[in-house]
């Protein structure tokens, strides 16, 4: 059952610039999706080059959380990437056919590479 999400935020420096890591733990649904949205609007996010949303600790997400992800990646900046390897979140992204908009990376390194690549495309 969805309770309050555990959300840990960490600022890091990557080649692309400052990156905000947001690690989420818990099931995401209508009862707590606002928490996820708030985290993606949190301190430092606006000025970051990218946000890595680590969803490896999310055993369940429904369209409430998916809507938050889709809103986040729609913003022109920062670049938002998601870590969700072989997980229910990855399955949800595939089911909703949004993997082109919200690619799920398998680890932190690849997620940061995704930010760098997206930033390069935008700059170019």
């Amino acid at each position: 059952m969805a309770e309050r999400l555990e959300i840990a935020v960490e600022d890091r420096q990557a080649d692309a610039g400052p990156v905000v890591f947001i690690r989420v733990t818990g099931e995401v649904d209508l009862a707590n999706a606002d928490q996820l949205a708030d985290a993606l609007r949190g301190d430092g996010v606006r000025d970051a080059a990218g946000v890595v949303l680590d969803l490896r600790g999310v055993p369940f997400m429904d369209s409430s959380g998916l809507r938050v992800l889709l809103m986040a990646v729609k913003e022109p900046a920062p670049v938002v990437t998601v870590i969700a390897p072989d997980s229910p979140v990855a399955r949800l992204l595939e089911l909703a056919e949004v993997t082109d908009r919200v690619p799920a990376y398998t680890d932190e390194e690849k997620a940061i590479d995704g930010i760098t690549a997206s930033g390069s495309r935008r700059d170019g």
Partner: protein
Amino acid sequence: MAAVTAESPERAELDLELPSHARSVGLAREAVVDLARRAGAPVDEVKLAVSEAVGNAVMHAFRDTAPGAITLQARQEPDRLVVTVADDGRGMSPNLDSPGLGLGVSLITRLALDVRFDSSDHGTTVSMSFPATAGRERV
């Protein structure tokens, strides 16, 4: 929350009444998991579909009206699990101020073997079925 769960070796059923509140989404999901597992139904698909159906009812059924009740029923049949989510709200209608119904409905149609939406001024009922292998073995 009023819950009635009738169980027998041959068939398991679930009948649950929930308030129109966001917390009910998780409660409904939790309630249906055990039945889905015992029925041999795809648990992740059932959980997601129930979450979407109850979430839609919470978000849309009682818009501009007093909060009402949402009923979750599930029953095991020989080769399928039938899950029904019903509310006594205002029925399905477009709401430009609160988009999102489309995404949940789209997911439900992709998750369930078949799905039926019945909507009127007296509420909406979503009936979904999923393949269930446990019942087939007993028949």
